[in-house]
């Protein structure tokens, strides 16, 4: 097997607030292979965004290492030596496109900004042509180029954010709940777009969500996080067929069913589970679950 694109080893991140110490991410390890869509699922506060931020060097983890294409991004010396590569080959898409796009820039400026910053000579002549090309890829027309983010709908704004991230031709795309703030009908469009782009470009994807139904459609492998720990990692099909950890089961049964009679009679799963403990053990090939040793 080739070396994974992203290798997260024993990652731990701690937030301090006075005397209060919160282990937001507690000894998390996972690998993402090249060309894979990896889902990270959990409720708010489970630490999934913190993992994403550590991967993007926004937070400095307390312990552990993160290898991206063999570079240890937690080591300042290695990071400085590969700064340009790290800044272009990893891209992040945020949940709220209204605040992640500059209100005072036109769409063309937003999409072309990364190229201008990295002084990349646009292969298609001008930065504007380049922006047009990227927008075309995510399904937006030329008429959007001179609009401001406030003039766009939520789905269109999220497409602009995706176009900006893709303009760098990243190897790894980290998407932190990219569709949580969109309408159901628009969610489907963006999900299809992600899938189409991944097939076309073949980039690797770390997809963060709180909704398992969405992950099932998009991801090839899924990790479930609960209170800072990964409790289960499995190929998507297997996780849905045979969930082993009680928390995964509870999450699975929380997916609302669009059927009034079935939905009303469905009992609520218990979520006040004890804090997870134990070590990840392999239950089936490729299927890991947190168990007490």
């Amino acid at each position, binding site marked *: 097997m080739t070396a994974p694109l992203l290798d997260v080893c024993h990652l731990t991140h701690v937030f301090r607030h006075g005397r209060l110490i919160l282990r937001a991410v507690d000894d998390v390890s996972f690998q993402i292979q090249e060309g894979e869509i990896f889902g990270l699922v959990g*409720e*708010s*506060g489970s630490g999934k965004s913190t993992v994403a931020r550590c991967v993007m060097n926004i937070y400095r983890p307390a312990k552990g290492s993160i290898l991206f294409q063999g570079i240890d991004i937690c080591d300042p010396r290695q990071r400085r030596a590969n700064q340009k590569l790290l800044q272009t080959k990893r891209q992040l898409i945020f949940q709220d496109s209204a605040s992640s796009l500059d209100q005072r820039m036109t769409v063309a400026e937003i999409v072309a900004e990364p190229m201008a910053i990295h002084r990349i000579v646009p292969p298609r002549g001008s930065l504007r042509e380049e922006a047009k090309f990227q927008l075309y890829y995510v399904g937006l027309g030329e008429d959007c180029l001179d609009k401001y983010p406030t003039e766009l*709908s*939520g789905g269109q704004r999220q497409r602009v954010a995706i176009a900006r991230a893709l303009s760098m031709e990243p190897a790894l795309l980290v998407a932190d709940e990219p569709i949580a703030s969109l*309408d*159901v*009908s*628009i*969610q*489907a*469009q963006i*999900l*299809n777009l992600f*899938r189409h782009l991944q097939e076309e470009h073949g980039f690797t994807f770390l997809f963060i969500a*709180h*909704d*398992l*139904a*969405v992950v*099932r*459609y998009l991801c090839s492998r899924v990790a479930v996080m609960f209170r800072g720990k990964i409790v289960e990692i499995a190929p998507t*099909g297997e996780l849905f067929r045979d969930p082993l950890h009680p928390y995964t089961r*509870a*999450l699975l049964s*929380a*997916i*609302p*069913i*669009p*059927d*009034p*009679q*079935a*939905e*009303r009679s*469905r009992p*609520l799963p218990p*979520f006040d589970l004890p804090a997870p403990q134990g070590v990840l053990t392999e239950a089936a090939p490729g299927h890991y679950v947190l168990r007490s040793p």
Partner: protein
Amino acid sequence: MSALLDVQDLSVTFHSPHGLVEAVRGVSFSLQAGEVLAIVGESGCGKSVLCKSIMKLLPESAQIVGGRILLKGTDITGYTEREMRRLRGRAFSMLFQDPMTALAPTMTIGRQIGEAVLVHRPRLPRAALRRRVAELLDLVGLDPAAARLCPYALSGGMRQRSVLAVALASEPSLLFADEPTTALDVTIQAQVLDLLRAIQQKLGTATVLVSHDLAVVARAADRVAVMYAGKLVETGTAEEVFYDPRHPYTWGLLRALPARAREGEPLYTIPGMPPSLIDPPKGDAFACRNEYALAIDYEEMPPMFQITDTHFAATWLLDPRAPKIEPPVGRWSK
């Protein structure tokens, strides 16, 4: 039995720099006491404007241009701000999408609930007030000790519960819940919906539940109204709308749910975008996105066709002259 709320042919317009926006176009519905009605539609279809126009919480640029709003048989369409103030809270109350912005960040939730109680019972002694706040917290499933906490110390679900306690402080007979679970996790969503349902059964509060997600609505609603481009296109009981949907837009909404997707297949999406409500199209507003559109859809607005006593849909496909089309969705079986 006269309905608690009866909205007849309501139209609301906004003045905007680009022209007159017809946000709500001839909406009629009625609500019985103790009933949960869900209004479902995409963003911008006018569902929030509809709720706010009933409570008269619209900005100055908006205007009710037609129709009547009857509350317990009384016409409140022409009520002044002063008369409305007396109704708000007592007759109807509202629950917003984002519980963090609906609460004052530096005030304990006990004080915020107490404030809402005092507005309607100004002379309540302090001990009785404290009892009432504890009672309300208990009603929404929070520990009365939580009264001493500020909103930032609470989780999203707890915040939404405390906003609900504020909304229920004056025992309204009608509660508007505008996307109450959108900002919450899947795991908390069902809990809040069950709470809404339980309170509605306990206090007999009628609820208007606004959402963009049909799956969420299935758990709580007695009746469902699907809204598109400022109009109601289908109304019926939850069973009728989910098991026997008639309008092509309802089919689209149901098919787009990720829960319905099968592995390996692309998700269904409704093609195109909702039309602009400045000078909306002449015929059926959904026609240009509708794969089953008939020629007449582009010419004339379809009337509400009656299917059963409670089930109505506005699509020309229900006209006896229209070709028979097998709906792509129906009873959830697989």
